[in-house]
């Protein structure tokens, strides 16, 4: 009778979370370059795709798999500070650690702000966000300025995120990037009693379809069509 060796890796991230993460990476780059080069139609589509992804991620944070849920990674400030001060010792988390959870929440909020201001923004020449005509030109111009300032904040958060991931990789020897690609972590870095539940991907697909529908509706309000 042969005994199977214990598994070396355990699944922690579902496909929707991973797709969300890397799609956001790609779309922020597309949005940046398209705005920079004046390709505003592409900027509009990438921005509204980010909106659809954010709406999906919020829904998935409530209805999704264990590690995707807000209640799994949002912690009170005291716990986050304690984690950053090392009070959790060598404790591992299946999903986001308290600091990482804060980063996720911050990025979702800041991206929502960015998309929200973008809906009312204008480029002063030919392009207007889908809701720009619902406000006065001064308000639209003001929100355009906020849109630019918030982007600097996004760059700062991305810088913090990359520095933190690099710290885990190069100082603590803990690779956070690979699990976000494969979905799996080495067993020793996952608490044994995690009891992770994974929601089926077709639920995610349904939620994303609804989110995308909202984004298309927003687009249509500005007279734009796919």
């Amino acid at each position, binding site marked *: 009778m042969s005994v199977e060796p214990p598994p070396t890796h355990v699944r922690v991230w579902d496909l929707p979370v991973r797709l969300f993460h890397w799609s956001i990476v790609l779309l922020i780059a597309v949005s940046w370059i398209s705005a920079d080069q004046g390709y505003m139609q592409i900027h509009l589509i990438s921005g509204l795709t980010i909106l659809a992804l954010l709406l999906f991620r919020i829904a998935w944070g409530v209805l999704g798999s264990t590690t995707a849920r807000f209640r799994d990674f949002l912690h009170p400030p005291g716990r986050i500070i304690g984690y950053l001060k090392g009070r959790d010792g060598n404790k591992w988390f299946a999903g986001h650690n308290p600091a990482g959870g804060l980063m996720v929440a911050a990025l979702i909020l800041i991206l929502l702000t960015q998309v929200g201001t973008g809906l009312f923004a204008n480029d002063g020449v030919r392009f207007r966000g889908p809701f720009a005509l619902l406000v006065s030109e001064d308000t639209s111009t003001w929100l*355009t300025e906020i849109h630019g300032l918030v982007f600097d904040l996004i760059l700062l958060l991305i810088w913090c995120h990359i520095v933190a991931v690099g710290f885990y990789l190069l100082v603590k020897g803990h690779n956070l*990037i690979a699990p976000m690609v494969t979905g799996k972590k*080495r067993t020793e870095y996952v608490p044994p009693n995690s009891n992770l539940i994974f929601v089926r991907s077709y639920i995610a697909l349904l939620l994303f379809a609804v989110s995308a529908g909202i984004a298309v509706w927003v687009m249509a309000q500005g007279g734009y069509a796919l």
Partner: protein
Amino acid sequence: MSSSGISGRLSAGAYFCSVALLTLAGFALAMFVRPAFGHSMLQWMGLESVPQAEARSFYATRVSSLFETHCTSCHGEKRQKAGLRLDSYAALLRGSKHGAVIRPGDARNSELFIRINLPASDSRAMPPSGKTPLTPDDVTIIRLWIAQGASGVRRTIPGAPQPVPEVKIPEDAPALTEKLRAPLAAQVRRIQMEHPGILSYQSRNSAWLEVNASLQGAAFGDAQLQALAPLRARIVQVDISGTSVTDASAPFLAGMPALEVLRLGGSRITSAALAALERSNSLRSLTIGDIETSEDTLAPLRKKHIVIHGGADVR
């Protein structure tokens, strides 16, 4: 790809020193690929002087106003499309996030000139459609300024179209006009009632008076003219052509302190009375019509820079 397994190879101190160095290198790279950002940073740190244009330079007097009118709503203090500001000489030289927009001495290859010179149908044309376009003279001014070095000091550029003089139309100031007319208003009204049509104000905003008795014919004589005596300080023009005014009124006319234009043709004034007009210090134009006179009589008037019209037989 392994989910972990890379043992810690750097101390926290070494890692954060590396991060700081990489961040500084990133900034340096951004300053290099985005010269406008680079110049802003260097100027902010005091490592680069901020170029200033002189107040009387060609840039300040002719070029900046064009940018102000056509460009700064998108490239100014409130909004900086493509990272470009055109509301100051320093910002203009700094350029956009894509680099310099002007090449001093080379207008044809300056991005700013290329953009303002594109046909309106081109999506890259500036100002974009819907905004007030630059006139050909405006484009020439910018082209010559860049071609001559885009100086912030130089005051003139040879060949630049001359500025169109600004015509200032005086504002309607009824209260002020009323105040100026008030002292003589009663006499003016009285004469206008007695001799309808001969007396009027020079314009809607003026308190100066004009007398035109030419349609009165022989009914207007010395007595009627001299009845205007209370108003003489305010009369700037008198037309007594065809009236029965005689030489006896010449001293009266010469004594009008504001009289600039006098038309005598067809009246009963003769050459003998013209000499009396030499006393006038305000007269600028004299129409003598068919009065027979001589150059000797007119010479003193011409000497006083009075322009004389007519003269049937000037000997």
